[in-house]
């Protein structure tokens, strides 16, 4: 059994493998050198795992590329996997998220993009269709770009229903109960300190949302200030930030097995965006945010860096592995649910996304 960790950076993709139960890692790369890889995913539903990368050529524009041989070769669609229809007058700026759907929808892959848009592929990520229900939503003109650009950055398809949950910076959380045909905001209770009404119905700068292992009705959100939980699929959100040293950050990750378990990486905000006192640490809750514990032995004490929204992930092993990539090009892995970390790679370009899977 091999564990694979895909590492998307500002200047390429690296693939790390472990064959000894995540104790040591061999790092292979760079792949796609000089191309920004802001979104990466490994689709293990296929006969051969497919690495999907949302890339930005720099001068030459963004697209989706894929590899069915773990990086040995890369493919892209001639006319572009993601192309805004002519009537929109829009052009793809960046692919922020690539999310394979559930096992019983084996060819469906979702993409969250900039400008704010959601896309659905029915052919494993080779071509995508714009989800018109979101693009035509009357709220869309009011969704402002955050500092990194305005985008759908989180896509959470539900395995048991037609529900799809997305999160945007800015815009907040929106839910569709009909696979994308119609959408409604589900951000009540999440704050927006940059707006005249600090508790709006929508418009929040939600940085990341993750679903609890106990069921899709419970989700967690790392917000631009504040960490929140919903127990009713986004109908209402309550703060769970008490117990954290600061309430700003970008990623939030949940356990695939243990209900109530989630991890965040607190950063001092708003302008600094570095770990408190430079100590890079993960904070973990085991009780759905009622309390938090600092964990992360092995993470650095002098790390004036940051962890981006997709630069932390969990694997599906038991105990759960946690992976953290930093803007100063380091990647750390934990095989014990965040208690201890070891260095997988350093001196990479800024790490933008990490995803861990088990290879068959």
């Amino acid at each position: 059994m091999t564990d694979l960790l895909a590492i998307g950076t500002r200047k390429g993709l690296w693939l790390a493998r472990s064959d000894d139960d995540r104790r040591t890692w061999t790092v292979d790369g760079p792949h796609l050198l000089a191309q920004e890889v802001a979104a990466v995913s490994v689709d293990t539903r296929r006969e051969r795992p497919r690495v999907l990368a949302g890339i930005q050529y720099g001068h030459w524009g963004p697209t989706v590329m894929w590899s069915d041989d773990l990086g040995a070769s890369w493919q892209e669609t001639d006319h572009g996997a993601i192309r805004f229809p002519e009537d929109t007058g829009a052009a793809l700026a960046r692919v922020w998220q690539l999310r394979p759907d559930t096992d019983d929808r084996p060819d469906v892959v979702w993409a969250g993009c900039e400008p704010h848009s959601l896309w659905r592929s029915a052919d494993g990520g080779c071509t995508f269709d714009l989800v018109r229900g979101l693009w035509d939503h009357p709220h869309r003109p009011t969704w402002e770009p955050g500092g990194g650009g305005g985008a759908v950055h989180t896509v959470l398809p539900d395995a048991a229903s037609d529900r799809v949950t997305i999160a945007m910076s800015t815009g907040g959380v929106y839910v569709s109960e009909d696979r994308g045909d119609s959408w409604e905001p589900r951000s009540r209770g999440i704050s927006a300190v940059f707006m005249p009404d600090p508790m709006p119905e929508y418009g929040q700068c939600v940085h990341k949302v993750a679903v609890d292992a106990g069921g899709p009705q419970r989700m967690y959100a790392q917000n631009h200030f504040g960490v929140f939980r919903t127990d009713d699929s986004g109908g209402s959100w309550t703060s769970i930030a008490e117990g954290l040293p600061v309430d700003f950050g970008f990623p939030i990750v949940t356990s695939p097995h243990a209900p109530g378990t989630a991890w965040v990486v607190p950063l001092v905000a708003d302008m600094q965006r570095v770990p408190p006192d430079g100590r890079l640490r993960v904070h973990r809750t085991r009780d759905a945010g009622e309390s938090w514990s600092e964990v992360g032995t092995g993470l650095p004490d002098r790390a004036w860096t940051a962890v981006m929204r997709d630069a932390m992930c969990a694997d599906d092993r038991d105990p759960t592995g946690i992976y953290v990539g930093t803007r100063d090009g380091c990647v750390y892995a934990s095989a014990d649910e965040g208690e201890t970390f070891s260095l997988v790679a350093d001196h990479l370009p800024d790490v933008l996304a990490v995803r861990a899977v088990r290879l068959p």
Partner: protein
Amino acid sequence: MSVQVVLPGVLADLAGGSKHLDVEPAGTTLADLLDELAARHPLLGRRIRDETGQVRRFVNVYVDGDDVRFTQGLATEVRDGAEVQVLPSVAGG
């Protein structure tokens, strides 16, 4: 009418490995030329222009040595025998 397109090395692979292409556009503007180029080499076309048809921000196109951003853009006339050069701008880091 025939126009010579000169590509940077990084784009040549998308045009069969050649940095110099002879293209016969259907019309007389730069847009016509790039349409023909994209029809022959779709990946190359996408590197130069986005899906709205605009030349990408950090791509510069010169017609007979003139940067089209300072002439007529995509409506710039391209004469028979012209040289159209595609270059990446000074950007990155």
